[in-house]
Every structure is written in C-alpha cells, then in structure tokens.
C-alpha cells in the first residue's frame, strides 16, 4: 500500500471539508473495496478520512412515508431491517444475494453504490485499462470478456457495475442525498447517479470532488410482489452474470437489471410490455445491445430470466 495519513471525521460537513482540503484524500467507510484496491495500488490515496463516526447510521420513515437509509447503514442491517424486509423485499433480497456475511457486516450503503467494477483488466496493472489509466486502452475488448457488459458500454470500456443493491434501488427509483464541501445538499435520482463510460470511463458517478453521500431515500412503499433473481457461476458469493430486480405492483411493473451494463440498467418503456411476457420485454430492454462473441449468451439469458420471473409474479 502507498503511504497515507489518517484522520477521523466527526460530522458529515467536516468530512466533506477535510477531503476537499487535502489533495489525494478519500473517504473510507467499510473499506472492503477501497482497501482491496489500495493493496493492489489501483487506488493510491495520500490521506484517508474515516467517516465511521459521523452518524448517518439510521434507517427512518420520513413524514411523507418515504424511507431514508443513512449512508453508513451496513448491508447486513439494511437487509435485516423489518420495514425493508416487509415493504422493500426486493432490496433485502438483492443485498442478501451479494458478497459474503463478513463483507455485508462491514460494507455500507454508500460504499456499495460506489464500488468499482470487478473487470479483470481493471485489477491487472500489467494490462491497459482506460478506467484505471485514462487513455491507456482497453484489454477487455479483445480479451476474456465473458462476464462484461452488453448495454451502455463504449469502445473504450465494457466494464459492468457489480452491485446487486443498486439494481434493486434502481427498480425502486431511489434518490441519493449528498452534502458538498461548502455545506450545500442535493438529491440525485439514482437513474442519473452512475455515468456511462463514453470517452471518460474513469468518471463513474455524478459526485463532485469532496461531495459526500449522506443517505439514500426510497419512495413510500409500492406494495406488490418483489423478486430479485440472480444468475451466477456458483450458488453463493459470486457476482451476477445477469440479475433482475422486479416489482410487480398495482401501479405497474418495474424491472431493473444487473450484470449487463456500467450501471444498473432499466428501460421504463419495456415495462409496459410485461403482460405480453418475457420475450416482449427483453426485445425492448436489449435493443441496441452490443455483445461480444463471448458474452452473447447473456441476451437469451435475459429473456429466459424475465420469462421465469414474470411467470412467477
């Protein structure tokens, strides 16, 4: 690990100001992704601001019925929260489908949104990667890309966003609340939070330098049937090949996908086709897909997954 200095922040505003004031500074919460990348020198912060003691660790029902999840609520606690299990089961299910119990005990809500891709070439410092070293090239395009993206990718990056949690939050239309170093706050719809790679795959979110996520807000309970189904290469503790978060409610069907794109993927226009079945929905979702020879199998897999999930709903 590259040498760094360390401080503990005492409030969200202090934390944002501390990161803005120190070049090369980063927030650290659970640390399960950042420290892994620091050991490999893919992340090399010169200063860490520990935000584990600034509050933001509560889940509360707001006056208008929405649910605010503090940025530092651990994945285990979010999945186990009785209100989440009852009213947002798709989110509990998505969280429980990800990582291991040890990681979920440590990983936070905000950190999960911000985790980096697991593309092998992003991790392999001996290979070019436009996300790791802008302008260096993409080894994945001509390499082993079986598990990489088919939608929203560019000729500079075909990495996927690895989160299961974020897929459920996209289906629920969550919004991400933040505080900037100057103390101003804003809410970013999750649809706009993760950016597509285009020509700048190293810029992954709408966050500005020093801007800190303070929480994620879910709409008032939608009712209906909640499903998260994940296809992976082993039964547990593996990233998605393809996953779908489905909420089939009186107000309409919502479908978001993981394992396909650089961000949780949702095509609202496809959802009106739900009554016509999986093939009709998949046709709209997958319009414009650019699979590689190795990951072309993900397209029929999406259709089959949708057919199965809609049949059960």
């Amino acid at each position: 690990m590259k040498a760094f200095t360390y401080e503990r922040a005492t409030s969200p505003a202090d934390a944002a100001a501390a990161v803005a004031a120190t070049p090369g500074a980063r927030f650290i919460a659970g640390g399960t992704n950042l420290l892994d990348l620091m050991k490999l020198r893919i992340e090399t912060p010169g200063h860490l601001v520990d935000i584990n003691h600034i509050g933001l660790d509560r889940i509360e029902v707001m006056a208008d019925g929405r649910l605010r999840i503090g940025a530092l609520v651990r994945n285990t606690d979010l999945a186990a929260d009785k209100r989440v299990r009852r009213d947002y089961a798709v989110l509990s299910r998505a969280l429980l489908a990800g990582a291991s119990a040890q990681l979920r005990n440590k990983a936070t809500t905000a950190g999960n949104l911000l985790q980096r891709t697991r593309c092998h070439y992003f991790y392999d410092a001996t290979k070019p990667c436009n996300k790791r070293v802008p302008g260096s090239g993409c080894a994945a395009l001509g390499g082993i890309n079986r598990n990489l993206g088919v939608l929203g990718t560019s000729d500079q990056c075909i990495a996927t966003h690895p989160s299961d949690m974020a897929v459920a939050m996209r289906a629920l239309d969550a919004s991400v609340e933040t505080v900037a170093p100057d103390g101003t706050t804003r809410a970013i719809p999750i649809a706009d939070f993760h950016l597509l790679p285009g020509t700048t795959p190293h810029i992954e979110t709408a966050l500005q330098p020093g801007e800190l996520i303070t929480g994620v807000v879910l709409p008032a309970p939608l009712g209906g049937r909640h499903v998260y189904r994940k296809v992976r290469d082993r039964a547990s503790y593996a990233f998605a090949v393809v996953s779908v978060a489905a909420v089939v409610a009186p107000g309409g069907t919502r479908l978001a996908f993981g394992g396909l794109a650089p961000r949780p993927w949702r095509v609202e226009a496809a959802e009106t086709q739900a009554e016509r079945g999986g093939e009709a929905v998949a046709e709209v979702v997958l319009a414009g897909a650019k699979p590689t020879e190795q990951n072309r199998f993900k397209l029929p897999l999406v259709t089959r997954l949708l057919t199965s999930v809609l049949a059960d709903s």
Partner: protein
Amino acid sequence: MTRREAIAVGGAAVATATTAQAAGGAPEAPAPALVEVTLRVNGRAQPLRIDPRVTLLDALREHLHLTGTKKGCDHGQCGACTVTVEGRRINSCLSLAVMHDGDSIGTIEGLGRPGKLHPMQAAFVAHDGFQCGYCTPGQICSAVAMLDEIKAGIPSHVTADLMQVSFSDDEVRERMSGNICRCAAYPNIVAAIRDVQSAKS
C-alpha cells in the same frame, strides 16, 4: 531454527530486495508517522503504535503475536482472517487497525484453549471439520458469529420467508460461503455446526 523463524528470515530477505529495487526506481513516499491505537482483544486492552497502513489482521498477527487468525488471500475472498468486532464477524484483512481504536475484537485465542475448548472447537474436532487446518480458526470464529446472526433473526439468500428465519443445513451452507476450505471438509463443518446448534436448542 523453527519454521516461524525461517519464514521471518525469508521475509527479511524479501524486504531487503524490495528496498534495493525501490532505490533504483521511483522514490517511495516516506513512511507516515506512527499512530496510537488501543484494541480490546479478547477482553484485554492492547495499546499499539503502528503505521496507519497496518490491517487489523497484521496488527493481531505481527504486533500482538496472536497467530491463530490466518492470512489466506489478504483480499477478503477466503475468510481465513475472520474475527469478530463488537460481536460481528468481519474479514480482518480488509480493515485498518487504526479504524478500530477502542473496539472489542474477538479472535480464536479468545474462544477457548487446549483443555477448555469452545463447544464449536470441540465439535470441529469430533467431526473432523478440517484436514490441513489453515482455514479452521476463521471457520470457527465465523460459525460462532453465524449462529448468533440466525438467533438475531437476520435472513439469508436461502431464507424462503424473509420474516421467518430458522436453522437448516442449507442456511449454514449459504451463510458460511465466505469461508473457503480447499481441503473441502464442508460436509463435516456443517455437521459440527449442526451439533453445536442442537446442543444449544
């Protein structure tokens, strides 16, 4: 020379080689100032002066010489480094010691000792829940905390009804998936955990 001393000498040789390489390449940033941290390990306060880069795992093994906790992958993939912090199991390789100032840490050394084994340790012995034994301290720390999680009603990926959490072999297999055993002693590990659960209930 013991095996551990041989490894220490080997490690020193590697360190020298790395320093020599660094001298010829890009200059490294100077090591940061040491920081004061107090960990409460197995009930005992342990003050340390450490580099902020020291992981909780390395603090336990290299600074406090509690070598029961094992370093497998050092990337949170194998579970050999599992310990509890404030009663919850985590991968100690993916956490910095400096982030745990004042925290209570539980390691395999705090669970039991020869002649007075923790029931989970005794069950692993009785069921041959290991072969080489390298993953075993992590498996046992993980299993003890895992039964507490079931008792606390925390659901898992295989829980059919999220509001109804109960013990089963499937639940054990899913909840223990963060602990890899390359000898594949899994059936015996599940049997050991099942035994401890039956004795408790």
